[in-house]
């Protein structure tokens, strides 16, 4: 356990002209912690995620990330080369639509191996062995290793995307609606898999979702966003069982019971 957070976000805002993307968001994330960001479409949660993952530059505010050497670095002052290096080594980004995060026309094995090759692994046998291992960890049969993700089901694609992201042992993973658009049974399998991987690997994760059940299952902490602002935050079960903000109460009361 370390006493320093992995990510320190302070007064982060993003404006699109006069429109608010996200406004004055601050929080800290520790290693091994999963933070869910919930809210309806347009609440600014995806803007926040894109700012944090440096896919988008904020209008103001800072975000410090503790590098592997223990030094805090200001994300928005890093060079693009450094940010991209972080992105393919120490970070992962799981897109809602796997096609955005995968190379659909290269094999599953190459999709998993790409990050290894990007950091300089030049041994085919080793890369392939690692790919086989990761495919099995995300429950994809080894004999599918040379198939293109185009031939995969939605759930398999999403699992492949996860393997592709985790192969370099990242410490922080961003997820944008990771179970969106999947059948309920496929969702359950994926959630369980994610839960296990996050625990086993001690990953920190920021999960954007509009699905409160996903948030409850995956996260320990939660931020509720509305109109670009954080209206409530705290322990996930506290926010869901004792919602305080009017908007959170509305969200929680809108869950369909099965």
């Amino acid at each position, binding site marked *: 356990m370390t006493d320093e957070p992995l990510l320190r976000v302070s007064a982060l805002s993003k404006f699109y002209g006069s429109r608010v993307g996200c406004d004055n968001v601050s929080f800290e994330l520790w290693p091994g912690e999963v933070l869910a960001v919930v809210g309806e479409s347009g609440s600014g949660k995806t803007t926040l995620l894109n700012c944090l993952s440096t896919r988008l530059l904020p209008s103001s505010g800072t975000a410090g990330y503790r590098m592997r050497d223990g030094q805090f670095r200001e994300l928005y002052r890093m060079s*693009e080369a450094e940010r991209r290096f972080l992105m393919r080594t120490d970070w992962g980004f799981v897109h809602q639509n796997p096609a955005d995060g995968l*190379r659909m026309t290269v094999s599953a094995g*190459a999709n998993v191996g790409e990050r290894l*090759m*990007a950091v300089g692994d*030049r041994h085919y046998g080793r*890369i392939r062995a690692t790919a086989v291992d990761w495919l099995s960890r995300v429950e994809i049969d080894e004999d599918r*290793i040379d198939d293109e993700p185009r031939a995969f089901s939605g759930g398999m694609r999403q699992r492949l995307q996860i393997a592709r992201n985790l192969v370099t042992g990242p410490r922080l993973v961003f997820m944008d609606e990771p179970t969106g658009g999947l059948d309920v049974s496929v969702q359950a399998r994926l959630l369980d898999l994610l839960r296990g991987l996050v625990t086993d690997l001690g990953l920190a994760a920021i999960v954007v979702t509009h699905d409160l059940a996903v948030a409850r299952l995956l996260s320990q902490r939660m931020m509720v966003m509305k109109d670009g602002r954080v209206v409530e935050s705290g322990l996930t079960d506290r926010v869901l069982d004792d919602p305080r903000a009017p908007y959170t109460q509305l969200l929680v009361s809108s869950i369909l019971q099965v």
Partner: protein
Amino acid sequence: MTDIATYNFAYLDEQTKRMIRRAILKGIAIPGYQVPFASREMPMPYGWGTGGVQVTASIIGPNDVLKVIDQGADDTTNAVSIRAFFKKVANVAVTTDTASATIIQTRHRIPEHPLTAGQVLVYQVPIPEPLRFLEPRETETRKMHALEEYGLMHVKLYEDIAKHGRIATTYAYPVKVEGRYVMDPSPTPKFDNPKMHRSPALQLFGAGREKRIYAVPPFTEVVSLDFEDHPFEVQTFDQPCALCAAENVYLDEVILDDHGGHMFVCSDTDHCEKRRADGHRGHLAPETHLASEKMEPAQ
């Protein structure tokens, strides 16, 4: 001598040639880097060597001796046409002899005869971007070059091994130039890749449609990409040239009849003819001596 007054020397106007020379100089200064240039319309369609022709037109002088080859041959339509073009618009001497040429414009081969200092090899390039088939966005590929993010190139080689058990890429085989830029050597067979490495000749690459020029200055490191456990290898042929018995050269398959008859002959016609003139004979060489047959009647 034919009159060339109706054209500016070497067809292009002087301002255009200066613009292209600047791009060439920049390319030489940054080996392997693709320099954008304002490619001109040429009196031939894209895909017929407009990039190479513009580069040649910009560097050629009245005292140059030009050789043009297409897939190694001096006698195919493209080679003959371009050679005739420069004869007409620059009134330069032309040749098929590799050793005596000062500028060699090529489509998809490097001559077998070793190039020497002072020679310039001009490649016609259809698609200059080695990352293109894996990453369609130009903005992204440029960023990848700038940041030296070349993992993707190995993804392609990985796919080859996964599918075929070995690196099956046989032409346009990607190389790393001077330890920095990954470059497409144009669709030459990978057999020719080692010839680029530390070549004493200057190598210039022109892509007319894609509007890019790049260069490998003399004595520059050119290394073919590979894996530790699947090292780069050139093609080998299990028989010598059927006409001149040459070994360790690149061979083309020639179909002889409709019954499956075929032979393998040197793709470099100049090399093959020289050897036969020197008395080398392959097992299918005709009885009559070919040495007296000249491709280009002397004028």
